């Protein structure tokens, strides 16, 4: 992306004039040093700690700290003890969290963005501000608010009681919502095939439990708070979508839904990638809500890898395991991001699609091909 900016000069034979390079380094030096000292070096040190037996006393680089290979990684993944089970549970919880939050917040954000971008809407600014407001509020403040709203005798349960629903004991209810649904249709205990085997010390049946009621409250909160930010990104992207293509589509008799699905959305693809990536990273790193709200309870159903990493290191004094969890989390995020990039890549229009657009009988006007290059 950035290479385009510098190419005209770089192609010339003169190159960078003497002194300019030095000045460049001089100007960038402060931020390089700051990032290096406060970000890059600590990350490298954490990587070292994850391979060491550092016990939390003195510098991890001192002589009496030894290299233990993959031992810390094995403790949380293959040993089958309590650390493995905790890590398995945290992954389970967070995977459900991601699975629900990322698609829902993206859809909601897109929906809100389309709504407030409509030219005929009165008071657009007001709505934009209102939808964006939760995003600028500190997540700790919102968590505390949520704890009040979702308490047993809180506002949410009060409102639910108006329509005859006896609300759950939100932040104290460890039952998974998939299990609750299964229980409602008579699948109480789980079939033998699912309860006998497992992964990371957690049976398949437990993996399928779904987010607990407590985690579900956090899921609602995440959707509520982050949709505003994502909406802003979509609004910006929507403003770059020219009206011409839409008008052309209208001339061809495309309905509003068709125009959105075949014309607008393909042009939003780069933004969609950004929104999904930001959502994915943010969701896998969920920490402060847990730290302020439930500390992993009830029954460890809101434990997340990020919080577990903190807990293992600072409370359990297992610094190596804590760092190992952090780096596994890092790999998970990278893998998901690459996978998503691959799914959302620009693809040549398939033969089947081309055939659909080819002139058949009396349809004279070629329908503009969507944003992708042919």
């Amino acid at each position, binding site marked *: 992306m950035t290479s385009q900016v510098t190419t005209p000069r770089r192609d010339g034979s003169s190159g960078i004039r003497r002194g300019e390079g030095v000045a460049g380094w001089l100007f960038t030096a402060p931020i390089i040093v700051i990032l290096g000292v406060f970000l890059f*070096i600590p990350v490298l040190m954490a990587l070292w700690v994850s391979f060491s037996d550092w016990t939390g006393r003195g510098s991890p*680089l001192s002589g009496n700290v030894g290299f233990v290979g993959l031992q810390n990684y094995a403790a949380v993944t293959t040993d089958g003890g309590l650390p493995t089970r905790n890590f398995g549970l945290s992954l389970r919880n967070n995977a459900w969290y991601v699975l629900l939050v990322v698609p829902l917040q993206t859809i909601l954000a897109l929906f809100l963005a389309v709504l407030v971008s409509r030219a005929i809407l009165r008071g657009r600014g007001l709505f934009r501000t209102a939808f964006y407001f939760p995003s600028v509020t500190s997540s700790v403040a919102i968590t505390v608010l949520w704890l009040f709203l979702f308490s047993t005798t809180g506002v949410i349960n009060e409102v639910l009681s108006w329509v005859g629903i006896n609300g759950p004991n939100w932040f104290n209810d460890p039952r998974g919502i998939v299990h609750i649904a299964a229980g409602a249709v008579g699948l109480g205990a789980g079939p033998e095939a699912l309860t006998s085997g497992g992964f990371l010390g957690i049976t398949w049946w437990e993996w399928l439990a779904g987010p607990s009621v407590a985690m579900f409250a956090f899921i609602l909160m995440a959707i509520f708070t982050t949709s505003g930010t994502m909406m802003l990104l979509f609004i910006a992207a929507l403003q770059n979508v020219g009206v011409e293509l839409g008008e052309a589509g209208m001339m061809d008799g495309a309905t509003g839904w068709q125009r959105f699905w075949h014309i607008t959305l393909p042009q939003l693809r780069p933004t969609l990638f950004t929104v999904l990536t930001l959502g994915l990273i943010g969701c896998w790193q969920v920490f402060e809500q847990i730290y302020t709200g439930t500390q992993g309870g009830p029954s460890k159903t809101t434990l997340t890898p990020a919080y577990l990493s903190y807990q293992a290191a600072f409370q359990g004094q297992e610094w190596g395991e804590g760092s190992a969890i952090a780096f596994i989390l890092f790999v998970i995020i990278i893998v998901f991001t690459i996978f998503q990039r691959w799914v959302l890549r620009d693809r040549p229009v398939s033969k089947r699609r081309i055939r659909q657009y080819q002139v058949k009988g009396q349809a004279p006007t070629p329908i503009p091909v969507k944003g992708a290059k042919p």
Partner: protein
Amino acid sequence: MTRHTRRALAGAGALAVAGALVLSGCGGSSFDSGGDADAGDGELTSSEDALNILIGSSGEAETAAVEEAVAAWSEESGIEATVNVANDLTQQLSQGFAGGSPPDLFYLAPELLAGYAGNGSLVAYGDQLANKDDFYPSLVENFTVDDQFYCAPKDFSTLALIINNDLWAAAGLTEADIPATWEDLTAVSKTLTTGGAVGLAFGAEYQRVGTFMAQAGGGMVVDGEAVANSPENVEALDYVKTHLADGTFAYAKDVGAGWGGEAFGKQLAAMVIEGNWIGGAMSADFPDVSYTVAELPAGPADQGTLQFTNCWGMAADSPNQQAALELVEYLTSTEQQLAFSEAFGPMPSIASAADAWSEANPDLTAFLNGADYAQFPPNQDGATEVIADFNAQLNTLETGDPQAILDSVQTNLEAVVG
């Protein structure tokens, strides 16, 4: 292009060198201080350095009392000492130990003791205390790791049965009905369970349910062996499960309270199992509720309760341990502990203060009597996670299988006790 690459390499090199310098700077200092602490095996360091004290305070009353006591000692001894209040004691301590500049003295919870002792962050000064024999033996045991008495218990609390006088009288019960056995407890809980309140409430955690295990003759670790799935413990959980199911007992969270004290204050429960700290909470938040503190009933085996305590941890990296030891002796003296007790409510950790304390708190003697038969949560390195996992399972005890729960706890506990 090549020039650019060369420059980039040079830049990266410079960065690496700068980074290495920064790191060796950090590493050097802490390595040195680690060195002289290791030498002090039994020998305490001594210098003119001021003392830094880190406490995790329960509130203004505690902070003021500790500050006042430390200031008085400073004046007497001529050694400067400052008290800092931690927001997150565990995290701040960890940072201090990792950075090589921990506070000299600090509050230390027993579940953290083994971890810090294991990595050499602490100095075991217990045997050098002049008032060593005055501490209750169960408290000394609580702070003993590998046969070394690490630190002086600063005070302690036990659990007792807290009874709401009005609900008690309204149910037609008298002082003679205060439960002495599980059968009595079953009976009064049933009588006290009405539409508005359950008979007995407590937190869904080992730190409360464990009292039943103690009363049944069980426990977590006995003589260095994990015994979590003993028949006694199963019997205790069966008893609790039965009454959770019939609605005469309830977890505090299930009646909509954050903890037992809240359930009690809001009169959602007629009785709760709580410790000394409930006194402060009641007078601050629910001054109108009158209550009685009774000893917990005896189970099939005997009476049983749990004790909770903190000690004055001393850092191995402290340059002035001798002065810190003197300060600890001052802070744990009879007179000073009674002053702390009056200021913010804990019980003195020394036997010589017992009579004076009972005299000053005639209504609370049940707490102090508990010291004779109290168990304490396992204090092995890693036990915190085992208990956390146990608590997670106790959450669903009503529908769970006590034997299966305790079996899994046993497996986890064996891994850390062995």
